């Protein structure tokens, strides 16, 4: 009898409205991913290895081409700058998606979804982890670029901040959409997490100006926020002009993309609850 009374007394104290956002829960999730990263040196090495290889390969190619072509001799750093900015975009999304995939690999998603963690808190924790993972990978690689090729990404200053903000926003939008697909379709959608960003590679004109594309394809290219960033980077490195107009347009497109991705995520989550796929996250 005593226990029943105790339980009933607790039932009268429902005060949580369900609308609150808790940074404490976000911190819990960030801590969970940090513990995981810290526990595994191959995971940390993987963050640095491929960006370093790619930067070195493109850097040496640029050195070779610049010695044999007048334009490239004047445009030193365009390739390396492109590689580094592309890695911010690509690794930003991977950092987001891999942290999410870790929950599926660990069969922990049920625990997470059943906890008081709100989806928006979960997404914010993944965004924080994407920056943490990106920093671990990109800071050493940017220093290597200075050591090997004299290209100082950090010297771009405020422009770099604008490039970074726009690229990371795009990478989060793509990551959010992929997380929704994974919730809805389970690990059957895993390949999307690894490859979806490559759709952006030709269209956002990472290594060449937009003018190279056929006119009809340029409309698609200009609908993608990273296109403005890569054009802006080329203007800065070759013409020494910071195109604030391009950054503002990129930001406007990013706001739309982020809103669309978030909407898609919540719709896919809703659909996952209807289809029962939160219980069955394998293929």
């Amino acid at each position, binding site marked *: 009898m005593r226990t029943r009374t105790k339980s009933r007394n607790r039932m009268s104290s429902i005060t949580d409205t369900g609308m609150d956002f808790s940074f404490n829960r976000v911190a819990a999730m960030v801590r969970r991913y940090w513990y995981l990263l810290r526990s595994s040196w191959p995971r940390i090495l993987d963050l640095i290895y491929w960006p370093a290889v790619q930067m070195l390969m493109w850097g040496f190619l640029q050195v070779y081409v610049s010695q044999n072509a007048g334009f490239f001799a004047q445009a030193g750093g365009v390739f390396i700058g492109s590689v580094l900015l592309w890695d911010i975009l690509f690794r930003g999304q991977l950092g987001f998606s891999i942290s999410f995939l870790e929950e599926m690999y660990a069969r922990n998603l049920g625990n997470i979804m059943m906890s008081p963690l709100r989806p928006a808190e979960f997404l914010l924790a993944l965004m924080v982890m994407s920056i943490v993972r990106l920093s671990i990978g990109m800071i050493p690689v940017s220093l290597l670029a200075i050591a090997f090729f004299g290209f100082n990404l950090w010297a771009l200053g405020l422009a770099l901040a604008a490039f970074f903000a726009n690229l990371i926003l795009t990478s989060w939008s793509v990551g959010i959409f992929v997380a929704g697909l994974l919730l809805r379709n389970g690990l059957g959608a895993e390949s999307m997490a690894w490859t979806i960003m490559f759709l952006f590679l030709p269209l956002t004109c990472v290594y060449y100006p937009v003018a190279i594309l056929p006119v009809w394809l340029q409309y698609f290219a200009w609908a993608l926020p990273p296109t403005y960033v890569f054009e802006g980077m080329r203007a800065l490195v070759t013409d020494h002009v910071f195109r604030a107009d391009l950054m503002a347009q990129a930001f406007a497109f990013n706001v739309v993309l982020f809103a669309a991705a978030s909407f898609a995520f919540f719709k896919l989550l809703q659909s996952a609850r*209807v289809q029962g796929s939160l219980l069955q996250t394998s293929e």
Partner: protein
Amino acid sequence: MDAQNTPAIAVDQLVKRYKGLAAVDGITFRLAPGSVTGLLGGNGAGKTTTIAMIMGLVTPTSGTVTVLGAEMPRQRYRVLHRMNFESPYVDMPMRLTVRQNLSVFAQLYAVADIDQRIERLAADLDLTEFLDRPTGKLSAGQKTRVSLSKALLNKPEVLLLDEPTASLDPDTADWVRSRLERYRAEEGATLLLASHNMGEVERLCERVIIMKKGRIEDDDKPARLLARYGRETLEEVFLDVARGRRQSEVAQ
């Protein structure tokens, strides 16, 4: 309805269909606060889907589920911090130590004085010496105890257990049951237990709901079920229900 009369869990005409096929087909039951109920049924009977709807992980096709007065899944965030669950089909991250895992979940559930709570649970569930070991390095029985610790971290008023002793040896399974009994006695929590283990249900539950093909085939106290079916164990009752033998036939 005031809090005194509010059932801990109320399921009303609940239906879940997947592509037209009914996994749960119009079930209704209410669980009183502080009660322990067993959900019995063979594979595909609809037990896990029912529990998933109670947790708010699956949206019903029709009907309603209310937990501690909150409609699931629409109002789930009003009550998720007062519930918890344990299932062998969900794991804790393997690379994290037991302490790391428990502290992350404790923070998610806004547990006060996390370190003290973890130490207390570790002592209760005989996990103290494993707290700083990676969860993946533990035996199946130890992992189950870790999952149970996670399920008890927030002192849940409603505890959902999906086959909590599956794949455990009889000694460990018995040990887990005794801890569940103690938790219920100490905290007055409502327990809903899906299981294939009739001995477990007989020992822990004061009420048994038997499901078959998404419907409730029977719902009563274990002793009354045994009397009505003229059987000595719940396993025999379960087999009668599973094989479609009616109470009248069994009595003859």
